[in-house]
């Protein structure tokens, strides 16, 4: 199966992510890859996707891809702007968000996320930006979708720091820690899709993107990756999808 057009692995990742979103869903959007995917979905099959950014905008309809989660166009096109306390306390915390859509620097096999440090917290080799809205998005959204590029540096056996809890050490930790949402349902990478095993909650490779070998995914994972018995192939990007993603102009450019 060959695409009639060439595309990049990042385009494939964004398109695969956009496909997961449904019209009228309420999505809490992290900046970066999730924001791009959500805005792509809005241009394709989900024009009434309701995007919530942590800066306080509800239902923004930007024409360009925002560089920051507080860009002017988000405010100008929003159904409503509320304060940051309202976003977190009134909208996120009570479980009103359908999809929490997150990126991260690192992930482990239970879909816990690190965006804080590489190395020791008190003396890090790389200091990352930190948590932002992620911990509570991961905790309180009804479902969580994660996007990050797959490599042994990003898919690691043990996180140096848990910024946002996926499933902790297995199927019981979310309950133990009082998290109200059901946690990650999918991890979308540039190589394929991973989903938690319904019983163990360990991530399992369920889809390969077109032309990606399963060995490549296994090699790009810092733990012994489980692969689904029925490994499926992601549908190729359509002409419409590629046109839409290429017409997404960043506000910064």
């Amino acid at each position, binding site marked *: 199966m060959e695409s009639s057009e060439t595309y990049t692995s990042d385009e494939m990742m964004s398109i695969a992510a956009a496909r997961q979103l449904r019209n009228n869903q309420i999505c809490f959007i992290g900046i970066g890859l999730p924001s791009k995917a959500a805005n792509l979905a809005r241009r394709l099959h989900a024009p009434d996707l309701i995007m919530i950014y942590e800066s*306080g905008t509800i239902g923004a309809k930007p024409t360009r891809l925002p560089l920051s989660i507080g860009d002017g166009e988000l405010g100008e096109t929003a159904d409503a702007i509320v304060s940051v306390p309202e976003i977190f*306390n009134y909208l996120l915390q009570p479980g009103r968000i359908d999809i929490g859509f997150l990126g991260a620097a690192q992930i482990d096999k239970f879909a816990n996320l690190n965006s804080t440090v590489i190395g020791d*917290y008190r003396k890090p*080799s790389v200091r990352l*930006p930190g948590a932002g*809205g992620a911990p509570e998005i991961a905790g309180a959204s009804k479902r969580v979708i994660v996007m990050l590029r797959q490599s042994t540096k990003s898919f690691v056996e043990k996180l140096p720091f848990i910024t946002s*809890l996926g499933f902790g050490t297995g199927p019981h930790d979310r309950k133990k820690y009082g998290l109200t949402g059901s946690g990650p349902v999918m991890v979308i990478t540039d190589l394929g899709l991973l989903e938690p095993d319904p019983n163990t909650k360990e991530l399992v490779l369920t889809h390969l993107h077109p032309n990606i070998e399963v060995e490549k995914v296994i090699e790009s994972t810092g733990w012994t990756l489980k692969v689904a018995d029925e490994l499926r192939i992601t549908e190729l990007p359509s002409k419409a999808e590629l046109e839409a993603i290429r017409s997404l102009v960043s506000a*910064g450019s």
Partner: protein
Amino acid sequence: MAEVVSLQDGIRHLLKDGDSVALEGFTHLIPMAAGHEIIRQRKRDLTLIRLTPDLISDQLIGMGCVSKLVFSWGGNPGVGSLHRFRDAVEHSWPQPLVIDEHSHAGLTNRYVAGASGLPFAVMRGYRGTGLDEFSTTVAPIICPFTGEELRAVAAVNPDLSVIHAQRADRKGNVQLWGITGIQKEAVLAGRKSLVTVEEIVDELDPRHGDVILPSWLVTAVAMVPGGSRPSYAAGYYQRDNDFYVAWDSISRDRDTFLAWIDENVL
């Protein structure tokens, strides 16, 4: 009632070495000019409080004004790392930086508690994360009705809270609109507050979505047109996204950074 002052006098009289200072503005209305004045006045040993430490925080940290950072996301939005922040944390340059790190929800609720005259706020969060382990301003709390375990976050009450707003009137009533983030809470949590504004007008005509801070809730107002650049002020000017991108290379190297500050701030 708020006093109308110059930016220079405002920073000079309201902020002293060793103080805690909140600079708030969520992408929009970031009080950049006030940050630059803090650099020019070479304030030292500050505790800087800010949800999203970005360029202004990078500059204050790089110039050695800040000994402690209370924050929840320290990056250059949509661009990448804050190199001066990283250099301080990773290599203690120009001096060590103590951090008190939270999630946005957590630091937001610390401001809410501070604004509400309470010693703490209650929230769901932190449990199971590294933030819970390392922060001394997060603690378990049990619901007296349900027995459920939640988290308390300690109130934050900055010695000075600084924000930028679109307008004030001559009595010192402040008006801001657009994305207003955590600014109301930051001002109310502050023991003192300084608001820089694009303009001072005779009358604040209503604007849709505006937040009004009555004069009696504000310590001082200073007129600083463009005081938020390269951030933006809805109704006045746009975000200079190019500069945010350019900051990555300006700030990556210590000498380039110092040269830029020398040329553009001092």
